[in-house]
């Protein structure tokens, strides 16, 4: 699908229900990836109960949200994981879930393969263990590969291999393509955002301008590589990339977190972008009446980007990337392909950047010293 500006304008004014709803099932995680968008680690004791989760799925079905993206944390850690996804697909709500793969043993792979209408994304952050484990932790790459082997052996069909583009992984694009091909899998590449714990690594790991340019060309040549519309800020380089090429936050996209808080998108888990909680009057109520979402659906202020000839192509880029690098939402994207973002960042060097709220990272054990 190329860029359709009239449709995009309609989308910017919001839809009756989201197209892309992400639901982080739990903040619990057995890994501690350095770039985790949701600062996951510890389970939140206020997590939605099985009954609340099922009620939410019923509401999603009633709103005709055709599929949900499930993540975490590690969603498979929830003991009712299978119960919930089976409840969803039974009502024709498709499930795409992201996992680190550690829980996909032979038995789980068989069970997943038996469920219709299910997509699985297994995350790695390098095409070899050394590169991937630097971000995801020792042994995580081998475990992810074992999960892929198990899904293949169980005849799951086509799954997805999901990679965040860092300064390191972006040098392995061809290797990722080959790896996906070897499993008959689809490749999905997404943007590194300074969200969650990502705020601590973004500066050293986000791709250089030259790397982004190469990525753009690589993606243009491969429209079958999935990106979840991640790289629309790169469309300013020329022809638009596949996808809607817009920031869908609160318009076509939103996030429900494990305790039912609704945020404008998966990359802005911060009080400033919180629209409400599904526990109050349900999800539909938040989607249609939240003041935050209403304001996001109004025509945006192009700010500093208004005078740039490429504003129509990139729409000023990603709100989350600006916010967590300390920029104003009217500033250029920090990775603006023309370097305007770098200049804006330079000016804000001394400002304090917002920190993600809430943080579920595992607490670093504090050494007890004798007095």
């Amino acid at each position, binding site marked *: 699908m190329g860029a*359709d500006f*009239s*449709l995009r304008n*309609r989308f910017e*004014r919001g*839809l*009756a*229900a989201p*197209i892309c709803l992400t639901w982080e099932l739990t903040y619990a995680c057995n890994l501690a990836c350095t770039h985790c968008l949701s600062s996951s680690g510890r389970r939140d004791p206020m997590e939605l109960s099985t009954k609340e989760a099922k009620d939410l799925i019923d509401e999603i079905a009633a709103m*005709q949200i*055709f*599929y949900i993206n499930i993540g975490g944390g590690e969603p498979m850690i929830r003991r009712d994981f299978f119960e919930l996804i089976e409840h969803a697909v039974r009502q*024709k709500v*498709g499930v795409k879930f992201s996992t680190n793969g550690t829980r996909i043993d032979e038995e789980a792979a068989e069970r997943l393969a038996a469920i219709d*209408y299910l*997509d699985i994304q297994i995350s790695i952050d390098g095409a070899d263990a050394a590169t991937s484990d630097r971000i995801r932790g020792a042994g995580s790459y081998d475990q992810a590969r074992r999960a892929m082997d198990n899904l293949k052996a169980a005849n799951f069909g086509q799954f997805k291999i999901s990679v965040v583009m860092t300064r390191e992984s972006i040098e392995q694009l061809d290797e990722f393509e080959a790896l996906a091909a070897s499993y008959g899998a689809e490749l999905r590449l997404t943007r590194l955002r300074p969200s969650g714990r990502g705020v601590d690594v973004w500066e050293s790991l986000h791709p250089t301008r030259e790397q982004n340019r190469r990525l753009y060309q690589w993606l243009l040549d491969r429209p079958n590589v999935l990106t979840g519309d991640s790289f629309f800020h790169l469309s300013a380089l020329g022809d638009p990339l596949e996808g809607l090429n817009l920031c869908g936050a609160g318009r076509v996209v939103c996030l429900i977190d494990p305790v039912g808080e609704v945020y404008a998108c998966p990359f802005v888990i911060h009080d400033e972008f919180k629209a409400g909680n599904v526990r109050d009057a349900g999800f539909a109520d938040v989607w249609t009446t939240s003041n935050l979402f209403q304001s996001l659906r109004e025509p945006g202020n192009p700010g500093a980007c208004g005078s740039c000839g490429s504003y129509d192509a990139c729409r000023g880029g990603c709100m989350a990337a600006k916010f967590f690098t300390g920029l104003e939402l009217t500033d250029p994207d920090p990775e603006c392909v023309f370097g305007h973002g770098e200049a804006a960042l330079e000016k804000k060097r001394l400002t304090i950047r917002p920190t993600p709220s809430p943080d579920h990272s595992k607490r670093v054990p504090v050494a007890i010293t004798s007095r």
Partner: protein
Amino acid sequence: MVQSAVRVFDSSAPWKLSGQVSLRDEAFGALAYHHGTRRLVFLKSRELVALVRNLEEFESADEAIDAVVVPAQHQRYVEALSSLFSSEILSGR
């Protein structure tokens, strides 16, 4: 290798919305989601949505179109249906 027959949309034939497709009304028209191909398609006008919903009531797509739009727009709607046909949103009956 035998070349597979090119499937062409025949507007003189009877059609219906595929049983695998769900429609969700939106201000601009509707979203159509195919549960088999898992693809989302946008129906960009309310007239098109009405046409697709009512296809089954008519003996041919041509008749269905004439019931919704003026003759000058007929060909445009044949093209729109043809594009929905290639996305497997429509099926024959």
